[in-house]
C-alpha cells in the first residue's frame, strides 16, 4: 500500500521555508496579543504566584524547555538499541 518512492517533485506548502516562517510569525504575534490581553481584564488569582505579571507565559515556556532538556538527559540514562529486548 505504501509506495516509498523518493520525493515527487516540489515540496508541499508546509515544507517551504517561507511558509514555515509565516506560521512562526503568526504564532509570535498571537503570543504577543495574548500577553497584551493580560492587562485588559480583572484578575482573580487563587494563588500568589499568579499575580506575577506574565506568569503563565513564562511558566509555559520554561516548563516546556525544562521537559525537553530533561528528556534529553534521560536519554543518556535509559536509551538502548531498538532491538534491546530482542537480543539474547
Amino acid at each position, binding site marked *: 500500500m505504501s509506495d516509498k518512492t523518493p520525493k515527487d517533485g516540489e515540496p508541499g506548502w508546509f515544507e517551504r521555508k517561507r511558509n514555515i516562517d509565516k506560521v512562526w510569525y503568526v*504564532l509570535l504575534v498571537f503570543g504577543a496579543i495574548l*500577553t497584551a490581553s493580560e492587562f485588559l481584564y*480583572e484578575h482573580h488569582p487563587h494563588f500568589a504566584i499568579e499575580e506575577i505579571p506574565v506568569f503563565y507565559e513564562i511558566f509555559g515556556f520554561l516548563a516546556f524547555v525544562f521537559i525537553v532538556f530533561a528528556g534529553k538527559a534521560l536519554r543518556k540514562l535509559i*536509551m538502548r538499541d531498538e532491538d534491546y*529486548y530482542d537480543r539474547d
Partner: protein
Amino acid sequence: MTAIDVNPGLLMIAAGLLACLLPRVGRQLLTLGTPVAGLLLLIATPMGALTTLPIFGYDLTLLRLDGLAFPFGIIFLIAAFLNAIFALHQDDRLQDSAVMIYGGAAVGAVLAGDLASLFIYWELTAVSSVFLILASRTERAYSAAMRYLVWQIGSGVLLLAGILLHYQETGSMAFTTITLGSVGSWAIFLAFGIKCAFPLLHNWVQDAYPEATITGTVALSAFTTKLAVYAFARSFAGEELLIPIGVVMTCFPVFFAVIENDLRRVLAFSLNNQLGFMLVGIGIGSEIAINGAVSHAFAHIIYKSLLFMSMGAVLYRTGTVKASELGGLYKSMPLTTIFCIIGALSIAGFPLTSGFVTKNLTLTGAEYAGYFWIWLLLIFASAGVMEHSGIKIPFFAFFSHDGGHRVKEAPVNMLIAMGIAAGACIFIGIFPQTLYSILPYEVTKSPYSVQSVVTKTQLLTFSIIAFGVLIRAGLYPKEIPSTNLNTDWLYRHVGRYFVGVLAYMARWAWAGVCGGWRATLGAAHGLIRRHYGPDGAMGSAWPTGQMAFWATVMIAAYSLIGFWYLL
C-alpha cells in the same frame, strides 16, 4: 425488578459470545448494534435501579445505577460503538468477539453493585482484552501479551484476596466507599492501582498497548484504566493518598514521552499522565473535583481514542508509527491530519475543546482546596501534555521532514469514526453543559471565564513558542529509533535470568523431592531405579512396586496416627 433492568454489560458479553459464531456481516451488525442497544437500555433504566440475584445465601447486585455509574456506562458504550466503526474494515472473528466481551465486562463492572461481581468483570476485562494484543499475531506481541496478562491477573488475584479480607473484616460485600487501613483495603487499593497504572506499576501500559492491533489499542485505551478510575471514584473518593500518586503520574511520563520514538507508545505515556489528573481529582474528593475526574475520564476516552485512531490509521497505511520514519503525511492523509490535530488540541486542553472544559474542573478543584503545589505541578503537567500529545504526535507524524510515504487517505470507516470523535470533542468544548448535566454532582459555573480562557491559552501558546524556538535553534532532540528502558526492564532483562533460574530450580526441586523419596525409601526396599524421566516412560514398570509401597506406607501411617489418637 422490571423487565428493563438488565445490565447492558451482560448484553454486550452475550453479543460478543454470539459474534464468534457469526459470519462477517453478522458480526458487523452486532458490533455496531449492541452498543446502541446498550445505550438505549441504559438511558431507559431509571436512576437508582437496583437488581439483585440471590446465589447461595448471597446477593449479587447485578445492576446498580447512580450518578457515578451512569456517565461511565454511557462513555464505555460510546467508545465501544466508535471502536466498532473504526474496525469495520477488518475481518477478524477473534477481535470482534473479544472487543465486545471486553467492553461488556467494563460496562458490567461499572454497573455492578457488589465486590464479587466486580471481581468477575475485573478478570473478564483482563482475559478478553489480552486477545486484542495476541491478535497482532507476532512474537513480540505474544510476549507483551503474556506480560500484560501476568499484571492483569496479578491485579485480579490481589483484588480477590482484598475482597475476601475486606469481607471478613466488615461482613460487607457492597462495592462502595472503603476506608484505607486494613490489609484487605490496601490489597483492593493496590489491585485498583495496578489497573490504573500507578507509578512503578505502570509499565504494562507502555509495554503492551503499542503491541496490540490497530483497532485493539483503541479499545484498550478506553476501558481498562478508566474502569480503575471508576473503581477509585467509587471506593476511595477523598482518599488523600491519591493526590501525590496522581501528581507523580501526571509528571513523570512527560519526560519519557519526549524521547519515545514509537508514537503509539507516546500516547500510552500520555495515558498515564491523563490518569494522574483524574486521580488527583478523586483524591481531592470535593464535588467539583469528582466532577472533574469523571468528566475528564469521559472526554479523555473520546480524544484518546481519537488520537489512537489517527495513529492507527497512519500505521494501517504506512506500516509504521515510528516518528523517525514518518513525516509529511498531511499531504497524503489530510483528513486524518485534521482529526488528529483536533484530538491533540483537546488533550492539551485548548478552549473550545472537551479537554478544556473538563480539566478546568479538576484544576478549579485544586484551587478551591488551596493545594498550591499540586496545582502548580498540574499546570506543569499541562505544558507536558502540550509537548508530547499536543505537538509531538501531529508534528512528527504529519509534518516535520517528509518521511517519503505516499499513501492513500485512511479508509472511510476510520474517517467516519475519527470524524465523530473529533466532532464530539468540539461539541463538548462548545456545549459543556451537555456533559456537565450527566455528572454525579451539579455544576454551576461555566468553565469559560475570561481569566481561565486567557491564562490557559497563554500557557499553551508559549509552550508552542518554546517548541518553535527549540526546533529553530536545532535544540529539540532528534527522533532516534531506540528502546527506552522502563521499569519493565527489571523483569524483562534482569528478571529473565531470575525467572530462568527460578524455573530451573522449581523443576529440579520437584525432581529432587521425588528423587529424594525414591532414594531414601527406595534404598530400604531395594526397589528404586535411578533414572526416572518426568515423562515417566522409563519408570512405568517401577512405580507399580513403588505405588504398592506407598499404599503400605499410607496404611501404616493412618493406623499409627489412629491408634496414637486412641491412647
